[in-house]
């Protein structure tokens, strides 16, 4: 099963290696990992998707909490959060195919962000599942390159994963 964790860390050098090293060291499987600064510039958020069982996710949570610059770890409850990822997909395309791909782009709400004589680049923001659908639709044309950010997640409603004010 897949679990999504929202991890707040101090924004300082070496934190990412501390966190990612822990995963390989303890044999946890990372599906995706995305990092970015939060509303507070001294704090970053790492969104991690792990594949495993309940025991593993509990261990991940506890071991992450032991990393000193980790401020907070929250395992997001299924159905209780919105998640998406950004993908940039470069697909081969000759003049004849261009119109077809543009249709797919419209249908999937994946704007074309770069055009060249033999290729098109689409930008797509949605769930991992929908991204897979788009990729399947584009595969027949020849995928040249795919760049994905990994999953980002935020809780539904007014709930937040933030540092508790002290």
């Amino acid at each position, binding site marked *: 099963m897949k679990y999504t964790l929202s991890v707040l860390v101090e924004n300082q050098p070496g934190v990412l290696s501390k966190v990612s090293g822990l995963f390989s060291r303890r044999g946890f499987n990372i599906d995706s990992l995305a990092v970015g600064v939060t509303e507070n510039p001294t704090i970053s958020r790492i969104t991690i998707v792990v594949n495993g069982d309940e025991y593993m996710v509990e261990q991940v949570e*506890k071991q992450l909490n032991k990393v000193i610059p980790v401020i907070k770890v929250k395992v997001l409850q299924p159905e209780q959060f919105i998640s998406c990822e950004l993908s940039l997909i470069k697909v081969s395309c000759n003049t004849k195919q261009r119109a077809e791909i543009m249709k797919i782009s419209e249908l999937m709400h994946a704007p074309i962000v770069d055009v060249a004589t033999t290729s098109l680049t689409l930008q797509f923001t949605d769930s991992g599942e929908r991204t897979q659908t788009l990729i399947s639709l584009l595969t027949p044309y020849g995928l040249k390159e795919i760049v994905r950010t990994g999953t980002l997640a935020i809780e539904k409603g007014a709930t937040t994963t933030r540092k508790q004010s002290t």
Partner: protein
Amino acid sequence: MVECLKNEHVEIAFGYPGAAICPFLDYLYRSSIRHVLVRSEQNAAHEASGYARASGRPGVCIATSGPGATNLITGIATAYMDSIPMIVITGQVNSELLGRDVFQEADMTGACEPFTKHSYLIKDAAELPRVFKEAFHIATTGRPGPVLIDVPVDIQTSEIEEFIYPQKANIIGYKPRTYGHPMQIKKAIAAISEAVRPIICCGGGVVLAGARDELVAFAQNSGIPVVSTMMGIGVVPMDSDLYLGMIGMHGHPNANHAMGDADLIILCGARVGDRAVSSPEQMAQKAKIIHIDIDPAEIGKNITVHIPIVGDIRLVLQDFAEHVTNTVPAEWIETVLHHKANYKPNGVADNSSGFVEPRSFMRSLSAMMDENAILAADVGQNQIWAVRNFNVKEGRFLTSGGLGTMGYALPAAIGAKLAKPNRQVVCICGDGSFQMSMCELGTLCQNEVNIKIILMQNDRLGMVKEIQDKIYGCRYAMTTLSGNPDFVKIAEAYGIRSVLATSNLEAEQYAREMFASDQAFILVCRIHPDTPTI
């Protein structure tokens, strides 16, 4: 940096110099802090570890960049596995040259990631007071452990505007829980009062928390018998009524039986390591498990826990004390004490054999030692002979339990003696482990450290040989130490009094001389290579 150490009341540091740490050592040399020059960096870490364990204060070790620093790593990992508070200070190449693979550059913060509780690579000298304050705070609170401070050589010589040592460390993500949750404590008390066959399993966490008195009081007031892990040895005196022995692969059979028969196991600062409990899940099916640990990650890691309590074992046991009464059925106590009485330790001395019988000699040695003596045992057969046959009373028992690092005992004993100069410190080694840190005899002589070394010489790597006896058809691959020197002569070359004993009678006689002497002493015991571990 020296001022920071002074502010932390550091009195002694163990280290080895090199170009990248020279500026700091130059200031340290002119300070009141004593620096003990080791003979190899790994031993600096082990000595700091022995010092920390004997004194209850963080040990400090120092090395230069590159090989000096990497040599420390085994010592750091050893301390990490046994949760020993330690501050590791390493020199680093000039900060402007970092990452260019210059002479003696090694990525220490990267290399030590898995073995340190936290690490710092200093980029600005102004950070130093805050970093030192944080490092000491992190190393000594919660579950203790080693913290690395890697300081580029140019930072060591740079000046800061004003030195203000912070009063408090303020780390937003680090607030170790100390008091157990009242609800969980209530549940535990209820479970204890309902239990028919309860047992306390005492681990190294009790020692680290300084909760010895609390644990003994808890056992006495509740009437619950106690077993210990190897790291928990010495918390409850071995001859006390309710103490049953050490559990685990090499433990006392009666202690293992008691754990297996129990219907309630109270794990106190014990992480249920694989050598202590071989099939934890089986145990959790038969018994209710209460697990008290300061590190939440240890709870539920190796065994299913019914009542978890995160907190400082000393404070949790104090909370227990207010509510616990003796409700243990007499039948259970009779059973465990009956098994304890039936346990007969192995090993009988034969004075005509030409060898010292180590297990019985350990028992004689134990009887000769001071009540508060500190015993350091290495890793291998010597360690098991020691743990199964020594009666640790008011003293301490030091060994590398988690990592099982050979060569630990001699430097750890030196560190312990420097922490407690008035206590008797005895070091037990095998001829394999002794040779891994034999160079420390130089440190011992230079600092006039009066420790007593018992060297068990069987010209074998005995514990591995025993595995080969049982599993590998007696093919003794790489376990014969035929190139062994005359250890007595080695000791004499250092000016250390040393004798060879070839019978228990002789060994006991020499041991009396050894304890009467106020100098370091090496007692070499010739051991038959086929003497078993158990």
